[in-house]
């Protein structure tokens, strides 16, 4: 790891009991590249905190530092009152991790995977016997507990991983792109489990995602772009900041339309791709009739909608989050898995 080590700020458990995660000016550099650039935030107990951003924004690097897998270049972070550089084992005991890529042993059964994990985390046999029932109940895998994991579907594996991350009763659960590679139905199903977890266990959850609609489930969202947090708010407030409703028009004469809107309503319209012109208004229902009556420029189609987090991201960073494609290595792995190794 990189040697630069700035003396960590000592966090005392008593000071911010309600903060499960405290991060101050966290920086991670890989050579010349700054992956995480001075990130600060706090996560309260029982909160679902989302890290939203495109690939390469620094989400996974942040998780790596918070989970002691990578040493911060500078800055500090504390989980459950333990500093990530100073008290690694305590931090590790305090967190449950679900990685982007599966980390199950598919030659073992679900229960063997859980038992392995519990032993590694020093869960006593008695506690394990109780918790295994509880966890398998929660992720609804009780009837498949003795089956080899290789016979599981992608969604079942992810559920098992979440269950495994819980068996040592962590203070916070880290989910790194928990629904990546899953079909929409499984994804929705998985979210039911995550929300149930929050409700029944008051679990603190730190998650990363690049799916806008998933970020809406979070209590608070940090939007991260090029290693920096550009906004940190509740989803509702983030959307409110964007200024009401969105009207999108298609017109062959984009420039003319933008000029006309500016002259008549003093609204700065944005022109996008494919003849699209977009404006934000306080109330689209009353504004639309005015547009119909007063505009001279020819419009081919018109559409109104409530702002989404995608719009928020676009207005904050000037770009859209794109869906990612599986990398070559993932393809090979998937292929090898299909062949049964």
């Amino acid at each position, binding site marked *: 790891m990189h040697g630069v080590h700035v003396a960590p700020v000592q966090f005392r458990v008593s000071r911010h009991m309600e903060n499960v995660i405290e991060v101050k000016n966290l920086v991670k550099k890989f050579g010349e590249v700054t992956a995480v650039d001075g990130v600060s935030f706090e996560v309260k107990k029982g909160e679902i905190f989302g890290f939203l951003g495109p690939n390469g924004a620094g989400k996974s690097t942040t998780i790596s530092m918070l989970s002691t*897998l990578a040493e911060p270049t500078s800055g500090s972070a504390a989980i459950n009152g333990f500093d990530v550089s100073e008290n690694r084992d305590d931090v590790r005991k305090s967190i449950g991790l679900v990685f982007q890529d*599966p*980390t*199950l042993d598919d030659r073992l059964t679900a229960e063997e995977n859980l038992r*392995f*994990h519990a032993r*590694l*985390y020093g869960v006593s046999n008695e506690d394990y016997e109780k918790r295994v029932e509880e966890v398998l109940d929660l992720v609804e895998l009780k009837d498949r507990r003795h089956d080899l994991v290789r016979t599981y579907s992608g969604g079942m594996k992810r559920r098992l991983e979440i269950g495994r991350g819980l068996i040592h009763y962590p203070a916070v659960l880290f989910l790194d792109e928990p629904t990546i590679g899953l079909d929409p139905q499984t994804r929705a199903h998985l979210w039911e489990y995550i929300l149930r977890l929050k409700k029944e266990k008051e679990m603190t959850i730190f998650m990363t995602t690049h799916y806008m609609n998933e970020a809406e489930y979070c209590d608070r969202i940090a939007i991260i772009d090029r290693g920096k947090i550009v906004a940190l708010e509740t989803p509702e407030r983030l959307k409110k900041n964007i200024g009401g409703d969105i009207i999108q028009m298609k017109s062959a004469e984009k420039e003319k339309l933008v000029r006309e809107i500016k002259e008549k309503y003093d609204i700065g319209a944005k022109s996008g791709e494919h003849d699209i012109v977009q404006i934000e208004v306080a109330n689209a229902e009353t504004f639309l009739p005015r547009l119909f009556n007063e505009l001279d420029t020819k419009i081919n189609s018109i559409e109104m909608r409530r702002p989404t987090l995608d719009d928020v991201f676009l207005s904050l960073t000037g770009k859209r989050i794109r869906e990612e494609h599986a990398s070559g290595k993932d393809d090979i792995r998937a292929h090898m898995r299909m062949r049964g190794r």
Partner: protein
Amino acid sequence: MNFSAIYIIWEREIIRYWRDKIRIVTTFIQPLMFLAIFGTGLRSTLASSSLGIDFLKFMFPGIIAMNVMGVAFFSTISTVWDREFGFLKEILVAPVSRISIVFGKSLGATAIAATQALLLLILAPLIGLSFPLSIVPELFLFMLLLAFTISGLGLLIASLMKSLESFGLLMQLLVFPMFFLSGAFFPLQNVPGWMKILSAVNPLSYGVDALREIILRTQIAPGEIAKIILRSPVENAGYLVLFSIILIFAAVVAFNRQN
């Protein structure tokens, strides 16, 4: 040292081994082939008289030692698999010291390799070899010691390797020279100096020598055995312990370095 963690890592290796029936069967076939084809072929051309014992009997302890090495190496491949399929991450983020991980892994490979070598002793009657059961505990001790040493080497290599392909390649490059320089096929008494040096840094040599002494001292006169044995079992044990300490230590260091 976290014994609970060592135990569960050890147990996982055993479970995985036990589920892979094909692997169990093939590791029995290989020594049989060596004895039947290699041994019989060499016996007919080699003057067994200079060994003072039938060539197949001379080779038998070497075949067992080779099997220990093969199985121990193969078992440590699981570490490379674990990395390839992500499971290593699950182990590495756990609140467990690297030394416990290395011990769990190497003891798993040791148990598998030594147990399998023990079972190979039932092949002895096939080549007309019979020995008192009283030597079995001593044999098993050396099987364990050799397996532990080799698994340390395997883990060291596995934690240095980035991909499964390079691990396999290096193993191939290593296994055959180690095998041929171990004295399994010919006594090392009269070989040239460079070969003596190479076989001295080969941990397998000490395993072969020890197993051969223990098995063959029940077959031939004490004066005769000195011709085909280099060291006493105690000496061999000492060297193996030394090798295992160095290799396990190196494996822990290598494990620490990655991540």
